[in-house]
């Protein structure tokens, strides 16, 4: 089985977000970049499936040269090779076109990615890729088993879940508990250095333009209510905040 796993290089979940250049650019200074947490689930499941049934796992990142650290970590976790599309992932559509272009050159049985990136949280790239390639797309998938050429999946829906069956090839957005996160071991880290990483140039154009970034307005002071008068909160929520 040939699996393509698309990963994002995103600010660590504890990162403090700020902008530079008149609020037109993300400020990378002092920020640690990590593999998207949902992408980590997708990669871990891909590596598990490879261990069970054989095949290959290719990692794909749409990103600039500084995301290679994240790509090497994915290789250390068990991917066989990697492709980087050398550009800033400008928007969902643009990113999906890059992925679909790579995917149409090789025949992948599964294209896995996180349910959403944790920088833009759009959660639409899997659907765009599926439609461009003309194959089904499903997200968020929390369980995935392969029987022959059929995938059996559990998808989270609002207030519950759904059991789904579909034939390969498929595009899936993944989330926990699809797999246990894998941590690279020393041998993985050593071999990752020599695994092939191909850099290709982007195609197509973006469909949106980010004009300006903004931080949320600072929160006003918190009104403290003494514990002995806790009941007063209910009255305040009714008369002052008007939310009850």
């Amino acid at each position, binding site marked *: 089985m040939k699996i393509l796993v698309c990963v994002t290089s995103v*600010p660590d*979940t504890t990162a403090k*977000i700020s902008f530079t250049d008149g609020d037109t650019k993300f400020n990378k200074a002092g920020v640690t970049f990590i593999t998207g947490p*949902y992408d980590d689930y997708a990669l871990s499941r891909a590596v598990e499936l490879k261990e069970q049934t054989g095949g290959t796992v290719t990692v794909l990142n749409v990103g600039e040269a500084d995301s290679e650290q994240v790509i090497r970590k994915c290789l250390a976790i068990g991917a066989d090779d990697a492709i980087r599309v050398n550009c800033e992932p400008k*928007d*969902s*559509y643009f990113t*999906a076109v890059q992925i679909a272009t790579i995917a149409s050159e090789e025949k992948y049985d599964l294209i896995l990615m996180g349910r959403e990136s*944790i920088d*833009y*949280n*759009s*959660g*639409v790239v*899997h*659907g*765009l890729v*599926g*439609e461009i390639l003309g194959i*089904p*797309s*499903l997200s*968020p998938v929390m369980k995935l088993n392969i029987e022959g050429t059929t995938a059996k999946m559990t*998808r*989270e*829906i*609002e*207030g*519950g*879940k*759904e*059991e789904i*069956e*579909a034939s390969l090839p498929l595009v899936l957005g993944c989330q*926990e508990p699809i797999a246990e996160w894998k941590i690279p071991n020393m041998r993985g880290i050593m071999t990752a250095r020599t695994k092939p990483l191909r850099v290709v140039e982007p195609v197509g154009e973006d*469909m*949106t*333009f*980010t*004009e*300006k*970034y*903004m*931080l*949320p307005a600072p*929160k006003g002071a*918190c*009104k*403290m*209510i003494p*514990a002995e008068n*806790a*009941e007063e*909160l*209910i009255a305040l*929520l*009714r008369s002052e*905040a008007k*939310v*009850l």
Partner: protein
Amino acid sequence: MSVLIFTELDNGALKKSSLEAVYYGSEVAKMKGTIATVLAIGNSTDDELAKAGNFGASKVLHANDPRLALGNIQAYADVLSMAVSQEGATTIILAMSSLGNAVAARVAAKLKASIVSNVTELPDFSNGFKVTRSIYTGKAFAKVEMKGEKQILAVKKNAISVVESSNSATVETFTPTLKDSDFVVKVTGTHKESGTILLPEADLVVSAGRGLKGPENWGIVEDLANAIGAATACSKPVSDLDWRPHSEHVGQTGIKVSPNLYIAAGISGAIQHLAGVNSSKVIVVINKDPEAPFFKAADYGIVGDVFDILPRLTKAVKAL
């Protein structure tokens, strides 16, 4: 030119988040000087669907092929794109949801449309078509220009304050041409918790963390939630420990909520948790630690023992 709103049905009724999207779409239509049309897919009645008029829509297209009962993403995307071409719609509005986003993504690829999720305000038409969206899980916002001839906006809950009217909408049957290839994905089973308020749809949320000490103590959380008609939620450690289901985990890697009221009991307020809740209108924090970082993000705070405070709040609500 017109605005088309993709809605979802729950047991035949238009979902609350969808009605908010209808109102948002109707306001966009007014700004553009055009009409708002709603697409509803699945079993429902004309009376129920006409309610979309109260939220500003002029017309509802109702597609009710029995094969569409199970929320098949490819089929829904085909129905939506057929409705777009019938209506000559250029702007498509929907509420953020797992089905809505999946459908919208495929339609964006079909139509070569600009697509933006997590939209938090009405668009700005003063110079092109620009929208404000939340990014970094609510830690920041971006103003984005939609460059495509068609635009798709997935709108976040509470992006707009809804004002209902007594207008009603006309309901028309919409009969899309469906292909067998729309149904290659088979839904073999659906499990839905009944009788609970869906967390992403909830106006009020009572959430609790490790301060509750164990799953057996959740009764006091549920009591307060039931008393005010809120959904229950939890922090990541609580769902990681399996005290509560993953579907209740709010935060950066869980569900993002933006209710009118978010009550956090025994949650310290890690940055990842705040990211998932910081667009709530009013935040109440109850924690025995006065240094808990969550108080900095709160509107109201009580320093105290959750085992004492929560039951007293429930009692106070019941006494109203």
